[in-house]
């Protein structure tokens, strides 16, 4: 039921008093003026509240249960973060600078902490979310090469296991994307890389650990190869949750380091809230950062717009400030040791779950038993599909019936029937075991009665959605009448 279905003519949630001031002509051209009233739903306040409370009850979130959505780091978000963000709710971006010193101090300190965590020398907090950060990072790399007069560098190398946003961001920034095949261990293949690296390469975009959940152990060598060729190394921060306090992208040789505060630093995301995608850079790139940059001088904080080589503004104002407050709160609450322990536990949880699931469901690129995964792993349903006709999609839907959010499916693309599982550090041993048991049950069901799984889900507020029709013929507007 949409809110339009609750509408009854004449009902109002709020009624404003009659005008008691003269109407002013704003000079809006006639043809832009609306002639008919907008057809908004007409409802009482209680209708609005019940409508959204009803939707909320049907929704699934990390507050309700396990959410192992690979590469998305759906960790629990402490409620303290929300309380702290609420302290700033009356701030306005046009306030005079002297009245927002506390907010600027928070941004400045957050930046300093994130630079320490990532091993970078300067940072912008402005990008709205992950992919926006990627684009910002790629524009910085472009500006750097062009500033040197190096106009030949038009290519960006991306491994075939990369997040889809990587090639998209590089393309948006005007580069041509070169995809390289992963090795049979699921890592960057140095020989493939060498073949493509030359004086037209602007950058290599990598995630470490990569999307298969494995650490790129040749990262220092890769960094040397990139820099020798005059290319820069870009870090996609999606998987930072695996390594905080243990390794820093800056130390590995990354020049531009991207973060997803909403993933790693515990703020609601994925339809639950806005993101934040800061970009950290090494010293030689700081002049290209977007404006404004928060700076401090003699104890006062200010916004620096005077960066002649800057790529410019990447959005209005200063980023999703509320998310910055939540990330700041999280970092201070956890402390240095707490952050490191969170990463350790994220890796431990993933390895425990991989061991449990690996008993009855193959794990991709897992030939070397001694090699641990990092914060996530990819289970491969190819064998199950061949033997039973049950697709990964069916397995995912069956998990919904058992009260779990499904893992990321069909990604990374190099694993055909991929189930990408990231448990995060905030789950207990019991939860991990319950999930592994559910997976086992599903595999047994697939062998016994595969047709039943094709029906799944049956216990959710809506049954299996027709994704194909939704994409082919989307109805994005309330159909009147």
């Amino acid at each position: 039921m949409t809110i339009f279905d609750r509408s009854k003519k004449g009902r109002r949630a709020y009624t404003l008093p009659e005008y008691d001031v003269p109407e002013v002509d704003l000079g809006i051209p006639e043809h832009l003026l609306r002639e008919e009233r907008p057809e908004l739903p007409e409802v009482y306040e209680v209708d609005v509240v019940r409508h959204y409370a009803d939707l909320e009850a049907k929704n699934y979130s990390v507050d309700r249960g396990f959410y192992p959505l690979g590469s998305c780091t759906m960790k629990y978000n402490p409620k303290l973060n929300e309380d702290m963000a609420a302290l700033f709710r009356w701030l306005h971006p046009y306030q005079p600078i002297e009245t927002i010193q506390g907010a600027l101090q928070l941004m400045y300190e957050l930046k300093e902490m994130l630079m320490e965590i990532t091993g970078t020398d300067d940072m912008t907090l402005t990008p709205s979310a992950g992919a926006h950060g990627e684009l910002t990072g790629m524009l910085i790399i472009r500006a750097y090469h062009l500033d040197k007069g190096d106009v030949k560098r038009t290519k960006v190398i991306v491994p075939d296991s990369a997040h889809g946003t990587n090639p998209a961001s590089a393309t948006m920034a005007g580069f041509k994307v070169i995809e390289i095949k992963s090795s049979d261990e699921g890592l960057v293949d140095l020989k493939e890389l060498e073949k493509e690296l030359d004086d037209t390469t602007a950058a290599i975009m990598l995630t470490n650990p990569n999307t298969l959940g494995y650490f790129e152990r040749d990262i220092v060598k890769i960094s040397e190869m990139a820099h020798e060729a005059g290319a820069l190394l870009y870090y996609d921060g999606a998987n930072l949750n695996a390594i905080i306090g243990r390794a820093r992208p800056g130390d590995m040789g990354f020049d531009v380091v991207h973060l997803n505060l909403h993933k790693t630093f515990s703020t609601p995301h994925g339809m639950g809230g806005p993101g934040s995608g800061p970009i950290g850079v090494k010293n030689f790139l700081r002049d290209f950062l977007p404006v404004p940059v928060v700076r401090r001088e003699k104890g006062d904080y200010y916004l620096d717009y005077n960066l002649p080589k800057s790529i410019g503004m990447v959005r209005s104002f200063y980023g999703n400030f509320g998310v910055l407050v939540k990330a700041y709160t999280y970092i201070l609450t956890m402390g240095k040791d707490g952050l490191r322990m969170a990463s350790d536990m994220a890796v431990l949880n993933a390895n425990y779950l991989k061991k449990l699931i690996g008993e009855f469901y193959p794990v991709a690129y897992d030939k070397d038993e001694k090699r641990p995964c990092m914060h996530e792993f990819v289970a491969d349903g190819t064998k199950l599909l061949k033997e039973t006709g049950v697709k990964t999609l069916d397995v995912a839907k069956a998990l919904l019936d058992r009260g779990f959010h499904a893992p990321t499916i069909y990604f990374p693309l190099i694993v055909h029937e991929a189930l990408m599982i990231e448990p995060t550090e905030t789950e207990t041993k019991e939860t991990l075991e319950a999930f592994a048991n559910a997976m086992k049950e599903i595999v047994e069901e697939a062998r016994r009665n595969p047709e039943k799984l094709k029906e799944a889900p049956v216990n959710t507020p809506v049954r299996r959605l027709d994704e194909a029709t939704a994409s082919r013929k989307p109805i994005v507007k309330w159909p009147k009448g």
Partner: protein
Amino acid sequence: MMKKYTKTHEWVEVIEESRARMGISDHAQDQLGDIVYLDLPEVGSEFKKGEVLTTIESVKSAEDIYAPISGKVTAVNEDLSDHPELINQDAEGKGWIAEMEMVDPSEMDDLLTEEEYKKFVEEEG
């Protein structure tokens, strides 16, 4: 008429002397799942063999489609803009994507025969 396949899962069939019709293989459509969108190439545009001809989107992923041969696009399957599901239903028939005027018909020689392609798919999968 001669029909060949690429390792990137396109099929191409010579329908007249130097004119060929192409699309994606039945195996490719099965791997992609329900196709939801196809960006049709422009008639008149020219491609070299192996260049990205267009992109295809399914509920699972978006993939590039490569030109199996060099040449100029002379026709596209307009039905696909409203009915991309034709590719799922009949990838190597009604789900054809484009017709091309070949520059060098001998390029066909390097492509895989149906048998070779089948074997390739088995080894890959």
